[in-house]
């Protein structure tokens, strides 16, 4: 058993090293308490809905969300808009469909099954409209950046005047959390930019937190069921392990040897 604990602690050590090397060489990001972290982490429903509002009113003019469908907005574990609300949201977009029986393409109001409408037709169009920089698709953005949610949250609030000696080209901005500090996206958020219907004050900090929460959900739409299932699975495994441990003790008691 002693030996066993050694192995077990070795594995724990290995995991913590892997966790800490991930955290190494990173800038200190701004911290906030995320409701979705931890064993029972869940999304803050209201924050997700506000985050969706920030996304539609601010980000969506440049950034696509190609893996999300309007139906996702009403699904469990997400912003959980009512189905009627999600339908209304979908219907407010014009979706290109076709060809119809005459071979013509046509536009129609969006349906729940439609993917989020993209701001540009293709990558080239997006680049042309943004000075050569492609605004990345935001569906899995949180998982595609080393610092994850903390990085996105900090980046949105990291705009400042460049320090002396740093010259910036046209259309390039200084952000202290950006890799290399130069970013082609201008500061988008300012206090009171959006008007939250639930009365929450739309500070830059609040909007950053809400939209980052929304991005976390879009990258991990099943996060809540993952956490719930994980807790049950691990609890089940622990109970089973204890039972098996005692049966093992019983079986091995017939043999004069330590286990």
């Amino acid at each position, binding site marked *: 058993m002693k030996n066993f604990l050694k192995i077990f602690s070795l594995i724990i050590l290995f995991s913590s090293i892997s966790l800490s090397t991930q955290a190494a060489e990173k800038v200190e990001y701004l911290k906030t308490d995320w409701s979705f972290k931890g064993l029972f982490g869940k999304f803050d429903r209201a924050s997700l809905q506000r985050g969706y509002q920030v996304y539609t009113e601010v980000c969506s003019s440049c950034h696509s969300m190609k893996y999300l469908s309007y139906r996702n907005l009403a699904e469990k574990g997400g912003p959980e808009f009512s189905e009627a609300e999600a339908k209304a949201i979908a219907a407010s977009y014009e979706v290109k469909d076709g060809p119809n029986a005459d071979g013509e393409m046509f536009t129609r109001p969006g349906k729940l099954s439609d993917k989020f409408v993209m701001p540009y037709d293709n990558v080239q169009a997006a680049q042309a409209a943004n000075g050569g920089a492609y605004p990345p698709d935001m569906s*899995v953005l949180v998982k595609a950046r080393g610092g994850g949610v903390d990085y996105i949250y900090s980046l949105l609030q990291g705009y400042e005047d460049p320090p002396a000696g740093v010259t910036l080209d046209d259309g390039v901005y200084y952000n202290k959390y950006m890799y290399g500090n130069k970013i082609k996206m201008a500061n988008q958020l300012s206090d009171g930019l959006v008007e939250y219907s639930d009365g929450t004050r739309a500070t830059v900090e609040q909007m950053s937190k809400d939209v980052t929460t929304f991005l976390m959900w879009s990258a991990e739409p099943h996060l809540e069921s993952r956490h719930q299932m994980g807790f049950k699975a691990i609890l089940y495994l622990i109970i089973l392990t204890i039972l098996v441990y005692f049966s093992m003790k019983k079986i091995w008691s017939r043999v004069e040897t330590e286990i």
Partner: protein
Amino acid sequence: MSDHEYTPKSKFGKWFNDRLPLLTLANHLTDYPTPKNLNYWWTFGGILTFCLITQIVTGLVLAMHYIAHADMAFDSVEHIMRDVNYGWLIRYIHANGASMFFLAVYIHIFRSLFYGSYKAPREIIWIIGIIIYLLMMAAAFLGYVLPWGQMSFWGATVITNLFSAIPLVGEGIVTWLWGGYSVDNPTLTRFFTLHYLIPFLILGLVVLHIWALHVPGNNNPVGIDIKKPSKDTVPFHPYIVIKDGFALLMFMIVFAFFVFYTPNILGHADNYIEANPLVTPAHIVPEWYLLPFYAILRSVPDKLLGVIAMLSAILILAALPWLDSSKIRSAVFRPLYKQFYWILVADVLILGYVGAMPAEGLYLLVARVATAYYFLHFLVILPVLGWKEKTLPIPLSITEPILGGSPNLATAKNKESLNN
């Protein structure tokens, strides 16, 4: 194999067994005499079997939904994550399962190194194990390419480019591997095919690995030959089954923690960016389990020699039974080897660490020293230790060191001096 003949009790059983002796096999597996002093380091064989089966089962399901096409692979993975029922669970088990598989295989290999399990008469078991390990690395690399993220694409580019180091035919081989002039759709489809094939090759080799194990039987922490069956052994079932089961459950708790709570921690964030041949990531790093070899590769300034060094670092293990000249198996009775063993463990961990860091400055220097030491350990230290080292007396049987103060101690010492 079991010494006694087995006859099934039922008439049908006997009829069947005469034609296909499956029942004899089952009986052999349950009765298989196993040393009773096996510690928990020995449970990783069973854990590895579990890992292999898990990877095959989850992989089959993923293959039903995955599309091996350069334009659709990334999307199909997101489709699995979002729209396939429990697709996220299957994929996270498969992705983290690869890491768990390697974690277990490294413990298994280092257990073998510590207790001298590779020595006669178990050389074939060991060599089959090394082939399995090589195939695992191939499967892991190929599998990492399939999501077609940035790290997939650039990892594939870097690794396949290693073949261009071969003189004269190198470039041709790389083009042949790619199926074109760069990593592209033909590369992806063939990688998918091979990724699907290799686990079944591994499965076949695992059967051989276990078969070869069942001829001499398990080594044990004391490292002595034991009579089978005797009071030193227990039947595999239920003793080892329950113990392996207990260890496996503990392992599954760690596994589950990764899958459910930090599923992406062992992967690289860049792999959630779709592959883009026009943008090179800032640092191209392989998965953690390949880092020590990556460090060796980069520590040699010449490309061809680097590739040779990396391959030799793995292949040298196959020659281990003949490089280690000591007749004593277990490090428990080899005071000097024990120290060198832990230095080697530290050396490999250091290699892994510098493999993750940029190859420059101090990191490069450390990588070079660690690489040199790695080869020194196998090529110089092990052969010399065998005839220089003063080993401790080994007991005659497993029961003896446990009961203590055995009258056989004098005989044991005699035997040990004969060995020297």
